């Protein structure tokens, strides 16, 4: 189904949970709602499902206004963070429950669909167990199966993997991606992790403080964030932001250090800006980039294959990511190198004025 939200508002008392949300979700698309906690992701999902009525604006399904319609009449399935299953029913009965309520299918049909869905989610050996006898991952898979078996037009998932350990999350994410690929269901997946938005692909909708900041294909939003806030939300580790002043051919930081302009910054008039460069593009010592900033190491975090260096340049704390394992002493002087061609430039209000060219940005944005 094509789901449209027109100027949707959700206010409770003096709190604005959602402000002027305008979205169009194409049929069969996979949409990731990315935002920090309390950004309004759950509220938005509930409005899409019909569990809450927006205080302003309309919700349209395939062009029809369904704003007042109760969720039971809409064709929606939802998966929650907490593994929600009927505790007294077996896995088989849990998955079959939405089909039984519809009452339009024969027992043989129900059996067939339940078994097919269970097999898709690798639950076929567990059909007669109770949810209490299952592990966390298995319980969540049961909840997902129950949502999928309905073959609803709209499937909503509210941070479904957040209560599982990270390896299980990796595996389920991959499974989900393949599951969603083959269907005509419109899927909306809410998460706080930028990594998930990139892995799942599809279209990313960045939400913060109840407002949609940007919507587009995952890579387009990643490489071309329309504001500093979007860049911050869509980065892990946090993106490095520094105030700069463009004077002639150089960009100057407040403490006087300078680096040359990047290719994509050609057309910008001189003045105050905010420059952002991702940790992955900042190197420590080693190969010289065209921009160099002296810094003092505050901390070096070693994960097995890479090193994250937190270093301080004047008043800024910057994070650099390096391949391999490197030891640094606290207080050590290092030089941070980066390529100005990788820098995202925003004006003082936070809006994007220049972004490095990237194939993802040249393609038509969804």
């Amino acid at each position, binding site marked *: 189904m094509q789901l449209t939200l027109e100027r949707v508002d959700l206010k409770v008392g003096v709190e604005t949970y959602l402000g002027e949300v305008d979205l169009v979700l194409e049929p069969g698309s996979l949409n990731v709602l990315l935002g920090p906690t309390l950004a309004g992701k759950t509220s938005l999902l509930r409005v899409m499902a019909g569990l809450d009525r927006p205080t302003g604006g309309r919700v349209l399904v395939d062009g029809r206004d369904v704003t007042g319609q109760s969720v039971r009449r809409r064709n929606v399935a939802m998966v929650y963070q907490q593994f929600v299953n009927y505790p007294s029913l077996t896995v088989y009965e849990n998955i079959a429950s939405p089909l039984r309520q519809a009452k339009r299918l024969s027992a043989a049909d129900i059996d067939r669909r339940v078994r097919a869905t269970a097999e898709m989610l690798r639950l076929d050996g567990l059909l007669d167990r109770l949810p209490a006898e299952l*592990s966390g991952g298995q319980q969540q898979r049961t909840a997902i199966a129950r949502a999928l078996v309905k073959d609803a037009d709209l499937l909503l998932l509210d941070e479904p993997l957040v209560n599982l*350990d*990270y*390896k299980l999350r*990796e595996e389920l994410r991959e499974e989900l991606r393949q599951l969603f690929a083959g269907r005509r269901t419109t899927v909306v997946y809410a998460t706080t992790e930028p990594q998930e938005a990139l892995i799942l*692909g599809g279209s990313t909708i960045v939400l913060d403080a109840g407002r949609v900041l940007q919507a587009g294909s995952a890579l387009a939003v*990643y490489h071309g964030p329309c504001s500093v806030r979007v860049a911050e939300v869509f980065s892990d580790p946090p993106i490095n932001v520094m105030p700069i002043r463009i004077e002639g051919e150089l960009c100057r930081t407040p403490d006087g250090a300078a680096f040359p302009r990047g290719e994509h910054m050609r057309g910008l008039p001189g003045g105050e800006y905010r420059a952002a460069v991702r940790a992955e*593009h900042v190197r420590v010592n080693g190969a010289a980039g065209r921009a160099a900033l002296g810094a003092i190491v505050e901390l070096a975090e070693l994960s097995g294959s890479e090193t994250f260096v937190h270093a301080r340049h004047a008043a800024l704390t910057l*994070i650099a990511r390096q391949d391999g394992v490197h030891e640094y002493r*606290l207080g050590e002087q290092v030089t941070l190198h980066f390529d100005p061609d990788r820098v995202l430039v925003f004006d003082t209000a936070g809006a994007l004025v220049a972004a490095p060219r990237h194939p993802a940005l040249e393609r038509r944005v969804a």
Partner: protein
Amino acid sequence: MARIEFKQLAHTYRADPRGLEDYALKPMNQVWRDGGAYALLGPSGCGKTTLLNIISGLLQPTAGRVYFDGVDVTERPTAQRNIAQVFQFPVIYDTMTVFDNLAFPLRNRRVPEPEVKRTVERVAEMLELGAELRRRARGLSADAKQKISLGRGLVRSDVAAILFDEPLTVIDPHLKWTLRRKLKQIHQSLGLTLIYVTHDQTEALTFADEVVVMHDGRVLQSGTPQELFEAPAHKFVGHFVGSPGMNFLPCVLEADGARVDGVRIALPPDVVAKGRRAGGRFEIGVRPEALRLEAEPRNGAPRVRIEALAELGHYRIAAVRLGTHPLKVKLPEEQEPPRDAAYLCFTPALTRLYADGVLVG
């Protein structure tokens, strides 16, 4: 400060265990040095929280002894063990201000008020909570509350070890970085023994000097992040550490290397020799980071089909197939991704051999 030691520590939750499989913690011996930062890493149900609760005294082990600095503390209750614990969700005293929360452990021990004030202010400064001291703890954000929980441990001068039970679970990804930085700085300046339980390998590897990987109640490997990454002692460690995990290919051992589905993969001769002596089912273990895809044919590099390509911002993951076996390869951002087929290159120094799931070389 404490050196923590276990001797033959084991625990079961069942009243009448019938065998080793009923034990949540199988018998284990460990020595953790004073002032080290340790991470207990493992999937849900591996026993890491059980172990943590035994160290803190909240759980009495069914068997074995626990020693702090050589002293047997197995029977001692929590309050006498000089440890502090930070839980998964922030535990604060709602009715008190931030100051009173931090002062609580000191006041319980009847520390004179001027000293309480000094200590609380010092710790609040360290945790960047100085501005919030007079506010009610209830209204703060999750990460500030976790800092308060941590602070309650830091105010006690006699604290030997601080235990963390998945403390960053409810924190937003960005703030996780800030809190981790804070924890590491505290560790470096105070030199306390820190024990951190998590199922997230990035957290474990970035936090700890030494990571203890657990699975099914056993310690599979205990080593530095680099050791775990480059030489996992056990197939499970290779799979669990690293995102994505290590690739495993069943193989046959030959004179000069291994053969996977007819494709020859080079191995150092001493590894082959060790493999022969060990015997069993052999597998090649190689990390996605240690593989390369080249567009041009290379010496002995097999041609593989690219089945899927995932874009992850600053790198890509290619899913390929060698014979019948799926593999994942990590490709840097700068490399132009190959279209449908490429040549798979191994790095002999980073290719490992496993026999029956255990590292041979």
